[in-house]
């Protein structure tokens, strides 16, 4: 970072601020920062502390130090935790290898303004606009025992395929539902990034005789590096932090265990205990790694 003393010739900074400017700047930065720290970081740290205690979440004077008990309980006595880890991993892999690449390719094609691209863009983006509650209702319509798909197969309720209950299907059903939103979301981010890539670059490549795939791989994709990182981080975070979709379908029961629901299930409701806080911290630690990687990339140039 350059400072005023080392760069006296830079005219782009005023040498001093008037007092009122300083106050204004203080307000500009102070109010948002205070709000953010008070409502996000402070509570996050508090929860980290609480994860080492026994507490019902009600009477503050009854907080008892528990050491690592909650974590031990999770790691050694709670098989559902490992089930959830498994589901979250599948989720992550699915997003990484299937949903996200599809979103990127889609964005690439739409950006080339193929026939009907306007309609396609809206069609694929539509699910992103819907609330999770609505998404749940819509898919329930298709897949519940007396829903569309079972109706199509001609199965009565008693013999209906158990799309949400049977382990052979449920995770894939949820993956498809999640991708339904995720692909549109990634497409949109990537489209925004593609707008920033010089069109001349791509044209030059095509004229040079490069195939479509080569152009994408050798020219466009590398030029998109910053967006790629964002997309990667969003993919990781969305798959680890997933909550709404599963909560809408299964409520807080363990129909399809994922970390986000385990946190909620253990921290809210009647059975609240700080085991939920410990789950939240585990989830936090899992997400913070990609966050750090992302921030390092993002701010490398600024730090220089």
């Amino acid at each position, binding site marked *: 970072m350059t400072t005023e003393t080392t760069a006296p010739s830079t005219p782009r900074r005023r040498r001093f601020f008037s007092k009122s400017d300083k106050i204004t*700047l203080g307000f500009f930065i102070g109010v948002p920062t205070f709000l953010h720290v008070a409502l996000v970081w402070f509570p996050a740290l508090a929860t980290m502390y609480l994860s080492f205690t026994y507490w019902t979440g009600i009477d503050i004077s009854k907080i008892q130090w528990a050491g690592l008990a909650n974590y031990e309980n999770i790691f050694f006595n709670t098989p559902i935790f490992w089930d959830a880890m498994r589901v979250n991993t599948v989720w992550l892999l699915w997003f990484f290898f299937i949903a996200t690449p599809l979103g990127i390719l889609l964005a690439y094609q739409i950006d080339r303004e193929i026939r009907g691209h306007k309609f396609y863009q809206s069609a694929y983006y539509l699910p992103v606009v819907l609330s999770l509650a609505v998404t749940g209702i819509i898919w329930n319509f298709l897949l519940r025992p007396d829903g569309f798909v079972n*109706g199509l197969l001609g199965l009565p309720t008693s013999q209906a395929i158990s799309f949400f209950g049977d382990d052979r299907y449920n995770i894939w059903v949820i993956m498809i539902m999640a991708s339904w939103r995720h692909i549109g979301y990634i497409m949109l981010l990537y489209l925004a990034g593609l707008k920033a890539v010089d069109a001349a670059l791509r044209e030059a490549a095509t004229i040079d005789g490069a195939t479509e795939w080569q152009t994408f791989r050798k020219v466009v994709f590398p030029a998109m590096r910053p967006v790629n990182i964002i997309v990667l981080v969003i993919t990781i975070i969305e798959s680890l932090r997933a*909550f709404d979709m599963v909560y809408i379908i299964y409520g807080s029961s363990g129909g399809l265990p994922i970390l986000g629901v385990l946190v909620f299930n253990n921290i809210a409701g009647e059975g609240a205990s700080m085991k939920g806080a410990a789950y939240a911290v585990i989830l936090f630690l899992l997400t913070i790694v990609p966050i750090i990687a992302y921030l390092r990339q993002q701010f490398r140039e600024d730090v220089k």
Partner: protein
Amino acid sequence: MTIEKSQDKKKKKLYAQDIKDRLISIFIGIFALLWIFPIAWTLWSSFRPYTEIMKNGVLSPPQELGLFNYEEAISRMELPTYFLNSALITIPAVFLTLLFGSLMAFVVTRYSFKFNVALLLLFTAGNLLPAQLVFIPVFKMYLALGDLVGDRRFLYDNHWGVVLIHVAFQMGFATFVLSSYMKTIPKEISESAMVDGANVFTHFFRVMLPLLRPPLASLAVLMTTWIYNDFFWALVLMSTDKKRPITSALGRLQGEFTTDYNLLAAGAMIAVIPTLIVFFVMRKQFVSGLTLGSTKG
């Protein structure tokens, strides 16, 4: 000759490309239809009575079509109340998020001071934290603050409390997007403003803010979608159902004793309308405003 040949080749290639594009377009088109199908099916079902489907199956040809489910949904969901609640939460939250986000972005990109990077880091990372990590302490703080000012509903069970938590969380994303955009705005503009003796206030509101219109428009669409659709915070930070947003009113249609799925479908379709309007009205500005990563900057 050679020129002719190469042009011929080019033409052929273009022709081949054209066919390929058509194929790709058809392929994407088929998927697009699949994509819309769930929504279309729900819409279709919302015009049919549930009793008919119970009797004849989901695929039965319709005997009765109409808006009756919508009429009932509108009366049972108490739409005006819940739409108003959604507006009371979404509008201030989006406005404040954008205001604070652009203030932060403005200061960290236009003025150089020690904590720029640290602040940006803090905000961006904060945006990515799981909401459940903060919920118990936030709840307790809201109550404690309420007791302090002598009104428990100061923040808890008050739409402002929900607004603030949304703002606190979403600000990070807004700051991040806006600051990347601001980096693409030539510094000279700021310089000339400062040379003209504009104070910080004028510099921001008169010079920078108008230039931020495109990313603000896209962010407004995204934020509206996210905040409008949230049900988590409204559930845990409010106790009066009549104050909750429309997303929770859908629960009223999901009555334990008589789940009329087609009625629910109508309700869902109604709840979607505001975000759809926002999206289609601002569709054009939407993608162009989100220059993420700013490779050109």
